[in-house]
């Protein structure tokens, strides 16, 4: 069976050209003025949050400064890619302290970038999101977060649901660091968050945490409460209640993890 299928795929692939209907959306750029004016996508009201109601690719061309008690971007369509392009989205929430002592002004309940219920496959990359209450990023299933710095959020910095990937990111001085319901978390630094640095939680059934660093978080550095969470090549140091917390029966601690400079 497999041989015949691979033969089909790697033969010459003839494709039939026919015309198609039109549903065009060019790449939309976003800056403060466009946010204030609205109509970034159909249904986007003036001001914040910016509503992204069409699948596609969006890119910041400037920083966004968001008033208190509101979010920056609300995603209401799946298959959306947001390139922060090195810019920063700043909310009104501020936090002081480090680790267990992090305390925030907490003026609302909004997330910086939020995917609406049922909206999946959202990608956010290459920038900073800080100063929100609910979370920096609040995304659903099959999300990808890459090269994002998120701090000073009262909730978790980054929340993703099942089958998601968080990589090359940095979460500091939030209520919590990364909260995942399954997938990959790799090459990410979680430091000085009030509760745990990186959490894999039920209903996840499987996750891979690799090559992360978690330090000075108020509860655990890395916390896997879900089944089948693999810990590999992580470093966890000086987290208040424990560096790596896991279910030892079904979540293996592989060689290569280091806690406080020694074995975990």
């Amino acid at each position, binding site marked *: 069976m497999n041989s015949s*299928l691979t033969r089909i*795929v790697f033969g*010459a692939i003839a494709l039939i050209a026919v015309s198609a209907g039109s549903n065009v959306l*060019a790449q939309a750029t976003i800056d403060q003025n466009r946010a204030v004016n609205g109509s970034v996508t159909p249904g986007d009201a003036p001001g914040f949050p910016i509503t992204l109601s069409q699948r596609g690719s969006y890119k910041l061309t400037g920083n966004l400064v968001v008033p208190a008690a509101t979010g920056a971007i609300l995603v209401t369509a799946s298959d959306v890619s947001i*390139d922060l392009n090195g810019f920063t989205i700043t909310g009104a929430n501020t936090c002081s302290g480090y680790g267990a002592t992090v305390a925030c002004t907490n003026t609302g309940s909004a997330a910086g970038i939020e995917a609406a219920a049922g909206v999946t496959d959202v990608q956010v990359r290459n920038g900073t999101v800080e100063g929100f209450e609910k979370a920096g990023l609040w995304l659903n299933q099959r999300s*990808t977060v890459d090269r994002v710095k998120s701090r000073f959020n009262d909730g978790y910095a980054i929340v993703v649901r099942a089958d998601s990937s968080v990589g090359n990111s940095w979460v500091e001085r939030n209520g919590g660091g990364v909260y995942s319901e399954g997938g990959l978390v790799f090459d990410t630094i979680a430091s000085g968050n009030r509760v745990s640095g990186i959490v894999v939680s039920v209903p996840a059934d499987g996750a891979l945490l690799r090559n992360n660093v978690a330090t000075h978080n108020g509860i655990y550095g890395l916390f896997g409460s879900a089944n089948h969470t*693999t810990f590999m090549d992580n470093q966890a140091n000086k987290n208040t209640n424990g560096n790596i917390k896991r279910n030892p029966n079904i979540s293996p601690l592989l060689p290569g993890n280091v806690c406080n400079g020694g074995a975990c």
Partner: protein
Amino acid sequence: MNTSTFRLRPTLAAIALLAITCGAQAQTTIDQNKALAGSVTPGDSPGFPVTLSVPGAYKLTGNLVVPAGTGGIVIAARNVTLDLNGFSIVGPVVCTGAGKALTCAGVKQGGGIGFYTGMSGATIRNGTVRGFGFYGVAADQGATINNVTATSNGGYGIAVNGGSTVSNSMANDNGDVGFLLFSGGVITNSRAHNNKSYGIFVDDGESQGHAGMAGEVRDTYASRNGDAGFKAYGIYPVSWIGNTASTNGDCFSGGKLVRNNVCDGVAN
């Protein structure tokens, strides 16, 4: 298959000559209107698929919405770089269900991004290919696939020929294998979820007369696939390094468990 290959030869010879004559080209943008108008490259007919017959760099500047039974883009030159630029190429097929019970509704033909035989060295990155009847992405030898999601396609999610590299990509809810490495290659930092057959399938190609090559899959996560999360087939070595398999039909089938692999919570 062979007939199609022979039929292509005169065309491809002409394309090769044209490429030599024209030399380097600037990055070409592609959107729905350009696809419908045709002539994105010489020989590209109006409508789909968009044919890329000249080596060079191409970039989507909008989603492509492709009708049933046809493909989105076909690579008909060597060394094509296609930046999906965060956009999606979308067909009408929808797959639903879990693991072996997954079914796909729609016409069972057409691939999101395909190629003509011999068009090696493609780079495809930064976007999503969804809803095609046959496969999501297929690329010939020496391809580089980075940050591509293939979802809800009737056959394979992402299939690459010998010596190719796939990284930071995801294949989910496809009607056959999630990732196929044919005749060796490398997959890193990727995810395969809820595909009807294997999550990752590495075939050395030897059994089909191709040059057998070794394969390697590392730091990759496979869950809820209908068959094994990680499958190796053939006589050339396939190395599993740092992968996690969770709640698939099986965990690792064939290949060599080099280190740091995990099967349903148990280190292998």
